[in-house]
């Protein structure tokens, strides 16, 4: 779960990390109010979960009321890579002489967090990592000990931060690591940390991704989550508690277990179809959950055909069959053709229960996917 910049900056500011003065606004008037307090130059920044906001026109600098109004009018309501901009952060413009990158993330290969600092900040850090990996200094953090002060200094010196800023930058890194731990972050970064003309050190951006598995113990962050998801289908999936990703194809896919669902998507592609989504009902799904999954997939207007692929372990084939029957019996007409493949626990019982007036049944994964792809092509024609 990714926080908005303004949310992350609030958290950073409370932790004592210097952030520019800023105010959230959801209207042109709000923006003008904000700039009248903050002064010029001011940055008007779209608050959406999209990378490369600047290039896409989601960030503008205003040096006058007129520019502020223009910026507010052009950004508020705009569509940024599929997300509508409802809110902007109005922020004090910072005059800077240098930009660094500072971040903490989990190095899954090492199984421990890693602190990263680079003097090549203010640019796409992934590109730096790719093109000039030496430009990023890294220090692994033993999770039992946490980031030690000497480590925070070491990685800052290793990155080549000049001595006059080293203390401030390592303090920011230490504060970031505290936040990383305290908030169950999966990533936390500032890109850029700006060195101002007055030699101050300030966090000009703020990225914070939270481990969704830890939201149960981060109630304040969990409250921010609803706010953050702006896509209807994703919100619906969140309510149902599904792992769901919408894709651009026309074959809806429902399965149990991430690996098997991904393999099913891959098979749709392999047989010439296009997956409309990833939907994992998880382990041990009962009838009503199966109904919800169908509801999800039918809600996607792109879907022309659906394939169910369930290999029962904890999930029982009879429950799945019951759920499919109940969900489809409610329709006067089945919206889209549904192909079902059941295997594993209670698969035979499920096959017996399944109302074959409502669905098509296939015995193997390969056959089921091929039929669903064919159905989608047929409908599309």
């Amino acid at each position, binding site marked *: 779960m990714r926080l908005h910049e303004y949310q992350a900056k609030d958290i950073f500011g409370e932790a004592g990390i210097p952030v520019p003065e800023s105010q959230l606004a959801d209207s042109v008037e709000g923006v003008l109010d904000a700039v009248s307090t903050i002064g010029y130059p001011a940055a008007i920044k779209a608050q959406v979960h999209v990378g490369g906001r600047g290039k896409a026109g989601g960030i503008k600098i205003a040096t006058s009321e007129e520019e502020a109004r223009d910026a507010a009018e052009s950004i508020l309501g705009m569509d940024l890579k599929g997300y509508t901009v409802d809110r902007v952060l109005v922020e004090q413009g910072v005059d800077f002489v240098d930009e660094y990158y500072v971040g903490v993330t989990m190095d899954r290969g090492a199984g421990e967090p890693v602190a990263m600092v680079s003097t090549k900040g203010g640019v796409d850090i992934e590109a730096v990592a790719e093109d000039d990996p030496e430009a990023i200094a890294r220090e692994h953090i033993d999770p039992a000990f946490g980031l030690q002060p000497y480590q925070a200094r070491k990685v800052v010196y290793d990155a080549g931060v000049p001595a006059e800023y080293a203390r401030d930058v390592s303090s920011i890194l230490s504060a970031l690591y505290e936040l990383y731990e305290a908030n169950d972050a999966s990533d936390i970064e500032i890109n850029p940390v700006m060195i101002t003309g007055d030699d101050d050190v300030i966090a000009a951006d703020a990225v914070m991704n939270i481990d969704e598995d830890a939201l149960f113990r981060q109630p304040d962050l969990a409250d921010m989550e609803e706010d953050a998801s702006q896509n209807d289908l994703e919100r619906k999936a969140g309510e149902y508690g599904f792992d769901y990703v919408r894709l651009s194809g026309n074959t809806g896919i429902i399965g149990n277990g991430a*690996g098997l669902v991904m393999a099913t998507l891959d098979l749709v592609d392999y047989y010439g179809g296009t997956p409309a989504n990833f939907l994992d009902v998880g382990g041990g799904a009962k009838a009503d959950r199966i109904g919800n999954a169908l509801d999800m997939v039918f809600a996607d207007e792109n879907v022309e055909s659906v394939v169910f692929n369930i290999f029962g*372990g904890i999930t029982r084939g009879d429950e799945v069959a019951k759920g499919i029957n109940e969900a489809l019996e409610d329709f006067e007409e089945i919206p889209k053709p549904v192909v079902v493949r059941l295997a594993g626990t209670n698969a035979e019982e499920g096959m017996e229960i399944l109302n074959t007036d409502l669905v098509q049944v296939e015995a193997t994964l390969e056959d089921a996917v091929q039929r669903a792809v064919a159905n989608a092509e047929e409908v599309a024609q």
Partner: protein
Amino acid sequence: MSVFVDEDTRVVVQGITGGEGEFHTEQMLAYGTNVVAGAVPGKGGQEVAGVPVYDTVDEAVDAEDATASVVFVPPAFAGDAVFEALDTNLDLVVAITEGVPTQDMATVNKRLSEVDTNLIGPNCPGIITPGEAKLGILPGNIFEAGNVGLVSRSGTLTYQVVSNLTDRGIGQTTAIGIGGDPIIGTSFIDALEAFEADPETDAIAMCGEIGGEDEEQAAKYIAENMDTPVAGFIAGRTAPPGKRMGHAGAIVSGSGTGTADSKITALNDAGVPVADTPGEVAEAIDDFL
């Protein structure tokens, strides 16, 4: 032979009094697994499915000479449960729980490096040596004893591949679901190493998925250290970059590693054929035998 578990494995079930714990204890017992104890704080002295329950893993291990544990404890407490198990000198801990916070696992991982216990999981279906012992939630009936080792990051995908193998009359020495989380105990390499050392394992099926670099590292390991032939499968070829696909591990970072392509190329370079469909994994294995 087999790897990690066999008929002599003596199992304590952590969280045995919960719904999942109780159900799968019954299933494991029915499969013939030597479940000797349960451990649940405050429930010491009770019995579940005829198995005595203790307040702590330590007591359970002491009283019943357990050699392995299976963890069915809810995510909020699973890290602590694994930590507890790691402090009792067991040979093996299998953590089934899905949704354990990653930072909890980082801490567990550190402790893991200090002890001699193997951890499988979390967020995994467990491990089975067909006909001998099942630790976890795998549906026992689809497995057959035989000479193929299987290691997979995914649960149900494993079942798919196993059923294809079994349908062809190819049995398994041991099948291991290592789990799909960012931080797990037993890695592909650990499992491959164990299978390589097992004289009865004549071929290995390895099912990976997008995210992380475990498959790439495994490919390197195979090229450098293994004689036993390996056939692979990688799920997530069609996953778009940056999207989370169920497993916390299944995220394509977009930074050149972790993609299906990078994994497939690495495996192919190591001489591992990578199947296009789950069904073809069994075909490739058949070709080896």
